[in-house]
């Protein structure tokens, strides 16, 4: 007669453990979600790393030991702390202009995250709107949407960015706009096909049967069902955009110097790569760790928020 099905992760619970006091109270969905989140190792690790980078980026002026542009001509190309010539004054060493690498990394996280997160959100918005409209209405509207998506898919991001930036001067705002306008295709494809599937589900018919309008169905019935997929996609795209931004900065097409981004730090260290490998390695490893962390967190969010409780 037990109609209520409480997803208990039985395996992770000790057999002899007394029933948790929470079990006697009704488990609210939110509490269940938090409980699942607190047991999701990937989410905890990825989320904390990502959160750490975000906090560091937010409080850069208070954390960074030096300003990102402060030069110390006497201490150029210093080794990091783990090398023989390292000193605590510059834990990650200094670059060719005598700027503190740690400080530049901290300030660089700001720009890198700002660009990739903002551009991803813009892209998510554009792609979701286009994809859901095409998927929901179908027919001719969908044909137009598909055409737009195909046009977009045929544009190579880096080449278009290169063309645009070579005409106008590069700036953070322009970079965000370009990346946002060029990376919405994945959201459009995913939301379009999911909307198509979901549109045939009976609860959409039931909603229409209960008097809901198209706008209500798209925004209130369909969108929440797609949200966890979109969130996962955003995290994946943030990770990709961090790489794209780094690539553009590496090519000298990104944020104009001296503003530090992780990509431009690699770019600046490129010349010294063979005798000062840490100049490339430090930002490279940082990008790697951040991208992995974001992906872990994204997967974790999906596992935890899915109402079916895949965890």
């Amino acid at each position, binding site marked *: 007669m037990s109609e209520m099905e409480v997803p208990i992760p039985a395996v992770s619970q000790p057999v002899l453990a007394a029933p948790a006091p929470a079990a006697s109270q009704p488990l609210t969905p939110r509490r269940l979600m938090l409980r699942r989140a607190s047991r999701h190792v990937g989410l905890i690790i990825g989320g904390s790393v990502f959160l750490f980078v975000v906090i560091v980026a937010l409080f850069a002026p208070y954390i960074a030991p030096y300003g990102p542009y402060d030069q110390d001509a006497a201490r150029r190309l210093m080794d990091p702390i783990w090398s023989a010539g390292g000193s605590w004054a510059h834990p990650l060493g200094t670059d060719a202009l005598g700027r503190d690498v740690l400080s530049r990394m901290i300030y660089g996280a700001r720009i890198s995250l700002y660009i990739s997160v903002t551009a991803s959100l813009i892209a998510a918005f554009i792609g979701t709107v286009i994809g859901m409209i095409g998927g929901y209405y179908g027919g001719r509207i969908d044909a137009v949407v598909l055409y737009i998506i195909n046009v977009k898919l045929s544009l190579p991001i880096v080449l278009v960015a290169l063309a645009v930036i070579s005409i106008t001067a590069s700036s953070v705002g322009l970079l965000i706009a370009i990346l946002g306008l060029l990376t919405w295709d994945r959201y459009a494809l995913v939301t379009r096909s999911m909307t198509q599937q979901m549109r045939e589900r009976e609860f959409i018919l*039931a909603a229409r*049967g209960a008097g809901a*309008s198209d706008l209500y169905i798209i925004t209130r019935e369909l969108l929440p069902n797609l949200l966890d997929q979109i969130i996962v996609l955003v995290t994946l795209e943030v990770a990709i955009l961090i790489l794209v931004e780094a690539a553009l900065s590496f090519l000298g097409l990104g944020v104009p110097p001296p503003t530090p981004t992780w990509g431009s730090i690699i770019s600046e260290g490129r010349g010294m790569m063979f005798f000062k490998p840490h100049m490339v390695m430090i930002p490279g490893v940082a990008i790697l760790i951040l991208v992995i962390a974001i992906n872990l967190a994204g997967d974790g969010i999906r596992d935890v928020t899915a*109402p079916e409780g895949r965890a």
Partner: protein
Amino acid sequence: MRAAAQLVGTAARSAEAAPALVVEGLSVDIALPHGTLHAVNDVSFSVRAGETLCIVGESGCGKTITSLALMHLLPRQARRTARALQLEGRDLRNASEKEMALLRGNRIGMIFQDPMTSLNPVYTIGNQLEEVYLRHRRSSRAEARERAEYLLERVGISSPAMRLAQYPHQLSGGLRQRMMIAMTLMCGPSVLIADEPTTALDVTVQAEILRLFADLQSEFNLAIILITHDLGIVARIGSSVAVMYGGRVVEAGRVADVFHAPQHPYTQGLLDCIPVPGTARQQHRLGSIPGLVPSLVGEQKGCSFRNRCSHALAECKDGLIALRDVQPGWGYRCVLPPDPAGRHGKAVPASLVAV
């Protein structure tokens, strides 16, 4: 009951007699690449408050399309025509999408076959019930919640407050169907369309849901249109029945009349397919109707059942078979004359069958 009604004045009687839903000459054509599919053809019926009309027929006979046509929820390629289509006296034939949206879920509600998929998985039950109410009423959420709790109790759900906070996946099929029923009742509609509401449920739950329908009908004075292929359900809760075949109503009348002496060979065939416990002998095969449902694409001429009918005559082939009245409110669409004994055992010799 009838005597009581006669005692009340004529005005009251006519008010009571006004059907909640009137359908006359409803047709639905669906444009396909290779022709027009006449999914529903000249279907007429009416339902009064407190009555249950059962629409029966096999898959593809147009039952569901009929109900969707009433709700204005047909697929885009479908075209609906009707001589009359009235909900509580309101003409729905030319109602705009906006006007229909105001009526759907408000004056006319629909319950679907599969309760497992007809609730949105990301919202709590309470949220979904309240949304329907808030959409059609100027009211506070607290008021909507109160209404939801009341209705959940009415549809036989214990501890409604706890259930309202749950998500659909936490409920069983039977409970979800009760939720759906409560949801359609939120705004107190006059007409309830139930499209095979018990098909996806197991037998014991089916019986409970049917009983619930009967209880709610008298309490909320509902006109119910129940779409089913289960004649057992019809016998149980139907007051009148419309048998559909090939997009047409082939026989319609009071359930007692139609079941006692079915006039259309198809109705008889359906009744013969019901196994009766205790009567089946060994080696005795269950009844079945040979043949397949005809294609509804292209022009429809003659009786669409003639290829499967053991009574078929030459005249079944052409023209439109008119609806004949056995008595007022009981008609059938067949060339055979009315037979008070029904069609059973009256197979026409093979020599006369011209197919």
